């Protein structure tokens, strides 16, 4: 039961990362266009932020790991994502005025807007491994299932966002929904921690 909750949380966090990344590109478009370099900036920042997140998440898992602390990562990520709907445009305007070159302008904007939340989301994967692995013998198998679940989540997040969500909802609505989902997952984690 506890493990199922962790897999669900990790899978949905994978979903949210890629949904967020797709929306990220669309957030930059009014200011920096939608060309290759804008997507280059977005992907670069997401990858770099995830990399840092993996490192920090692994570190954090060394100190009294628990499902509640794991849940705290989700709440923090939600708190970093949700306010984007209020300040993203002002921040984009600021970077647009600051930097003339669209490549570096979009890179800087993407750093400010997407890096903090994505670092938090990156921390989830190694922390999940720590919570799921009971003996070293099975650690590879556990990591395999975890990657499977979270990367499949990412694939679904990309597909649903680009094919359907942008057709059905406003962008800010989707961002809020992603943040709300993270909050609900955190709650789920806390409850699972209490019960088990």
């Amino acid at each position, binding site marked *: 039961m506890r493990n199922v909750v962790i897999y669900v949380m990790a899978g949905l966090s994978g979903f949210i990362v890629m949904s967020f990344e797709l929306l990220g590109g*669309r957030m930059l*478009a*009014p*200011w*920096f*266009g*939608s*060309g*290759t370099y804008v997507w280059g900036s977005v992907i670069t920042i997401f990858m770099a932020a995830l990399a840092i997140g993996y490192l920090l998440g692994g570190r954090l898992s060394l100190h009294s790991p628990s499902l509640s602390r794991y849940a705290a990562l989700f709440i923090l990520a939600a708190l970093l994502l949700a306010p984007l709907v209020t300040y993203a445009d002002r921040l984009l305007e600021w970077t*647009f*005025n600051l930097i*003339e070159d*669209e490549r570096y302008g979009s890179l800087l904007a993407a750093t400010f807007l997407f890096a903090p939340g994505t670092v938090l989301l990156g921390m989830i994967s190694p922390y999940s491994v720590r919570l799921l692995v009971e003996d070293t013998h099975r650690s590879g198998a556990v990591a395999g299932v975890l990657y499977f679940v979270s990367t499949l989540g990412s694939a679904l997040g990309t597909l649903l966002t680009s*094919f359907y969500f*942008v*057709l059905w*909802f*406003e*962008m*800010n609505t989707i961002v809020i929904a992603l943040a709300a989902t993270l909050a609900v997952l955190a709650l789920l984690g806390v409850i699972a921690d209490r019960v088990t």
Partner: protein
Amino acid sequence: MMMRCAALTLLLLAFPPLATTKTLHSERSLYQNVLVIERMGEICLQFTVRVDVRNQTCMKVNQPREMVFTYTKMMMASLLLIDDPTSVLVIGLGGGTLPMAIQELFPGATIDAVEIDPAVVRVAERFFHFKPGPNMSVFTQDARVFGKRAARQNKRYDLILLDAYNGEYIPEHLMTAEYLQETLALLTPGGIIAANTFAISRLYDHESATYEHVFGTFLNFRQPDSANRVVFASNQPFRTEEFQRHRATLLDPRLRPYAVQLARYAGRLDGREDWTRGAEVLTDQFSPANQLNR
């Protein structure tokens, strides 16, 4: 025998078989496949390799000035709604037909031409006689970025020709209410925006709703022999039919090399409202233009 062979060859050269298509140039740019073909005395620019795809621009080899497509002529009808322009912004280059015509007709006007794809600029220069004069600047830049920068430099235009949607893929951030507002803000008082857009699919209703939202009233110009429509918008009431006829009389002699007859359009720029009301306005928050265009 020899002579006869030569004669035949000459004959073939003079009258090539009708449907022969020759590929003059083909390149995969950062944004699209750029293809230049020659067929039946016309050189055409295409943005994909599929055969059934509409040509982007065509030019007659013998009369390079002549405008081949109806929508290009429809765009020229914007000249009925203003005095001779002194500053013009052209968004989307294609073969450069529109900016070249404007440059030749109004040599004193400053022209800014914006095209995102450097390959298109090169092809226009090499195959379509596109030669920017001293008053024309070409910006290889995203149109939205260009517009925002232009606003900050207080640039203003009497005429804005928006021709950025090529039918294959719509730059969605160029079809939102916010973008149209930004473009409207670049107009001088009484200036005109002419936008060449689609007249098909679900997108039509959404686009129309968006134009109405931003411009209030606009002229919805359609022609029976074109699948496109051209939308005219301004920040002031449109000029009278009388003014338009006066402009046509003035301009038509000069427009003869382009095969444009504005007298046919004068006073007839407003088509009936032929879209379904109530479609959602396209915004930066909601802009699935490509999904709606399927």
